[in-house]
């Protein structure tokens, strides 16, 4: 619940009707600002930057042979922005558009893409396109012929014709050309400068840089000899090689000429031997596999095994973290809010420290401090408490550390909310003879919850996915004995997903990772929807 990734609810203006009302009355400072000379200048500079960016993106997309709709989207969006901000009207749009664009780019697009990946087999061995995969299979099948001599090679060229000066293993020197094969140097017109052959029969020696400029010609260069063809393996060496696997674009089949096996593309994104389904070629390519990942997530024992335990603990962790931090933050906020307390500013500053430090640094420090034998905590208390080694202690420890991470945020929110409660309410309450507890129960808490309930929901959702704290503090450990698949007692859904998708699954399985991400999203979204329904009555108090 720390740092910049906190959900956006806390940044929205909480002043009721503030901006809208101001716009309606036409006296919002920004609406006047736009008419001043300075305002027009700033607007033009910003719009110019937007247009520049648009042109840059279009040039880049076209350069990469990107899709036409990419170009169209950028062009239309840029023109739309110009229209909105240069026009006199559409004032509300001027406020909404930037947010909407960022929402689309940073929220909607990643989600749609994740959703798409969940329906593919994107993962180990399935990351290329089919064309790329065919090219790789053919390339990897190129083998150096057994006992083929390895020649030293120097690139030469005569106009557009390229040739190689080849030195055999027995130090015989030839000029190799695609038309005439190997020509012994003795029969040719050779020019030497300082003992270096610089020209042969009209062909001139090239530097590697010059050869690099005609790299396509040299890559395609084949010099026919009796036993086969000589080709370059680097720009300074050549040998005889042969390709053993060939793709036929007409039939769509791939043939291995050494074994005679024929491979056909499968709907799983692999070339499969038509006679032996177990024989497949690497690499494969990414294909849409429909709901297969979802079916696997629900039925595969290796994935489903510890799922229920992990899910229960995820809820427990998120709940304990959210309400623990809220209770502690509120308690401290009320204490610090008391005018009788001396030096409140200093205390308040001190409260913020855990919030200001990066999680991944402090989590590692906690991990060191909680080491059973060598950690400073056990050194001080003189007892070997298994903070991170025993399942229950480890659960306690992650909640404790997360409490430390999370309470400053709640403290800040609560302090702000407390200060916005009108003090005349309390005066009225004391006149009526309400006790301290009654004042807290009947005035502070309800009014506070109006402001903080959405924050609580977002904090819950954040802790539901609080990867950093778990991964860095315990890595999900200690492990669950006898689990069907590696899992730990402090694993929450997101760290468990990480294990399955990236660590234990025999390589990276983005498709499965995306599937579980989608399922987690559904869980969190459903919970948030329910919570907001529960909050609504609170908001009505204010009206």
């Amino acid at each position, binding site marked *: 619940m720390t740092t910049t990734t906190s959900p956006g609810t806390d940044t929205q203006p909480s002043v009721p009707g503030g901006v809208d009302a101001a716009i309606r009355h036409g006296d919002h400072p920004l609406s006047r600002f736009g008419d001043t000379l300075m305002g027009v200048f700033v607007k033009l500079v910003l719009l110019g930057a937007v247009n520049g960016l648009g042109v840059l993106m279009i040039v880049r997309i076209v350069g990469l042979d990107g899709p036409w709709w990419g170009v169209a989207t950028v062009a239309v969006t840029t023109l739309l922005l110009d229209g909105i901000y240069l026009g006199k009207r559409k004032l509300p749009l001027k406020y909404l558009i930037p947010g909407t664009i960022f929402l689309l780019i940073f929220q909607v697009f990643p989600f749609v893409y994740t959703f798409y990946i969940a329906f593919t087999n994107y993962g180990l061995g399935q990351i290329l396109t089919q064309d790329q995969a065919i090219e790789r299979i053919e390339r990897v099948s190129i083998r150096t012929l057994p006992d083929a001599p390895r020649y030293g090679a120097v690139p030469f060229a005569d106009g557009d014709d390229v040739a190689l000066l080849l030195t055999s293993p027995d130090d015989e020197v030839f000029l190799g050309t695609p038309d005439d094969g190997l020509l012994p140097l003795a029969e040719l017109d050779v020019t030497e400068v300082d003992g270096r052959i610089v020209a042969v029969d009209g062909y001139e020696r090239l*530097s590697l840089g010059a050869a690099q400029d005609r790299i396509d010609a040299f890559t395609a260069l084949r010099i026919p000899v009796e036993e086969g063809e000589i080709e370059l393996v680097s720009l300074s*060496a050549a040998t005889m090689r042969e390709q053993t696997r060939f793709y036929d674009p007409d039939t769509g089949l791939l043939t291995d000429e050494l074994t005679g096996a024929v491979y056909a593309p499968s709907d799983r994104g692999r070339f499969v031997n038509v006679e032996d389904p177990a024989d497949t070629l690497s690499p494969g390519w990414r294909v849409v596999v429909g709901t297969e990942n979802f079916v696997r997530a629900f039925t595969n024992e290796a994935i489903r095994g510890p799922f229920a335990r992990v899910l229960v603990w995820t809820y427990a962790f998120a709940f304990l973290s959210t309400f623990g931090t809220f209770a502690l933050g509120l308690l401290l906020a009320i204490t610090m809010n008391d005018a009788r307390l001396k030096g409140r500013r200093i205390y308040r500053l001190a409260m913020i420290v855990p919030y200001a430090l990066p999680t991944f*640094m402090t989590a590692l420090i906690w991990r060191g401090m909680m080491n059973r034998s*060598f950690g*400073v905590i056990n050194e001080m208390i003189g007892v070997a408490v298994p903070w991170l080694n025993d399942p229950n202690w480890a659960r306690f420890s992650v909640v404790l550390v997360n409490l430390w991470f999370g309470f400053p945020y709640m403290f800040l929110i609560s302090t702000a909310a407390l200060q916005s409660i009108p003090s005349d309410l309390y005066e009225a309450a004391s006149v009526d003879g309400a006790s301290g507890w009654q004042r807290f129960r009947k005035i502070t808490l309800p009014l506070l919850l109006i402001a903080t309930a959405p924050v609580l929901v977002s904090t819950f959702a954040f802790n539901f996915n609080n990867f950093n704290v778990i991964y860095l503090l315990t890595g999900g450990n200690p492990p669950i004995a006898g689990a069907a698949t590696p899992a730990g007692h402090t694993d929450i859904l997101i760290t468990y997903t*990480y294990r399955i998708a990236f660590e234990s*699954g*025999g390589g990276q399985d983005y498709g499965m990772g995306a599937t579980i991400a989608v399922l987690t999203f559904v869980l969190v979204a459903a919970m948030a929807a329910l919570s907001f329904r529960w909050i609504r009555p609170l908001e009505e108090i204010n009206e």
Partner: protein
Amino acid sequence: MSNWRKWLAVVPAVALVLAACNGEEPVEEPPVEEPVEEPVEEEPVDEEEEAVAEEPVVRADADLVIWADDTRAPALRSFAEEFGAENEVEVALQEVAFDDIRDRLITAGPAGEGPDIIIGAHDWLGELVENGVVAPIDLTGLQDDLIDVAIQAFTYVGQTYGLPYATENVGLFRNTDLVPDAPATWEELEEIALGLQDDGTVRQGIVWPSEPADPYHNYPIVTAYGGYVFGMEDDGTYDPSDLGIDSPGALEAANKFAEMIDTGLMSADISYALMLDLFGGGDAAFAITGPWALADFPDVNFEVSPIPPVDGGTPAPFVGVQGFMISAFAENELLAQTFLLDYMATTEAQVALYEVGNRPPALISAFEEVADDPNIEAFGEAGIDGVPMPAIPEMASVWEAWTNAYELIYEGEMEPEAAFEDAASQIRALID
């Protein structure tokens, strides 16, 4: 043995993190550089840990683009410049954090944004080849110049995919002030270690990473009992259908680990940073780790030797090989091959890489030039009995399940043999 030393345990972590965010924005993604799960593939708290750049690396505009980590890039710079100047080509050397190179190649390569050459470790091969993102390198003519196990490590399904430049494996570090002579057997070592521990000379007699549990550092003991991870076929490739974690030898080793925890020889709370701290501060007499840690113990006198026979069996550590690979999507593959075969397979280049990386060179002529350092020679000797770390992608399923099995043994949560048997069935379920 005062309390301030325990505080020191957290210092490396802080330093590491401070280094990681030095001048860069705080990492938004979960920082993967901390070796929490796979201590092998991500070498713990190495100099390589410092994240170089968190922003996506985009292919530089040059004829030849090389991705190397911040440790090796400086050593390569002069060679890259020489190559560029001699041949009138433009060479760009881009720094990418070692642990990021593999994933970035997989995403950037097919999109046309990748480099021509990367630096990497041989156990990435399975993933890189299965994904089709690296190109074969023809090492014909160099076979006799390179250490056999290095070429073998970079061979995958009949093709070689890398030019190796260094090998690495664990060995036994010994504090020579506390223990002048290397023990001849593991049993002798246990006696010395426990003796020093009991009379309070050291805090822990022998240390190697155990928090989290570390199958990589534990492997020599497993192999000493005849255990193995995957069976090896005659041609030296690993057979994923022959999993050896529940083989009789491995189960015997599992019992050995439980015994070592019981006797107090082994502590279950040693993180990599703690190991460096304890051995480096003279609070441990022995440590098991690799050549990357040679520069981390400036304050103690130490020597390296192979791990002595355990219960009569010879320990075989995993051998990792580092090398250069060429991207399958290299824009200039022939030029990349030229640079590697003509400029990197040289004594001069491999010695330069040794000087920054501390690992024994893979080129025999370079190894001989630096082998006058007895510690490097000892690591080479320890590696002779070693086996290449499996590069097959199935290995990814092994680390986590095996780590968990060790943790359950360390904590006494499971019978040792049952823990290994469970891990084996977890791995089989994942591989199938």
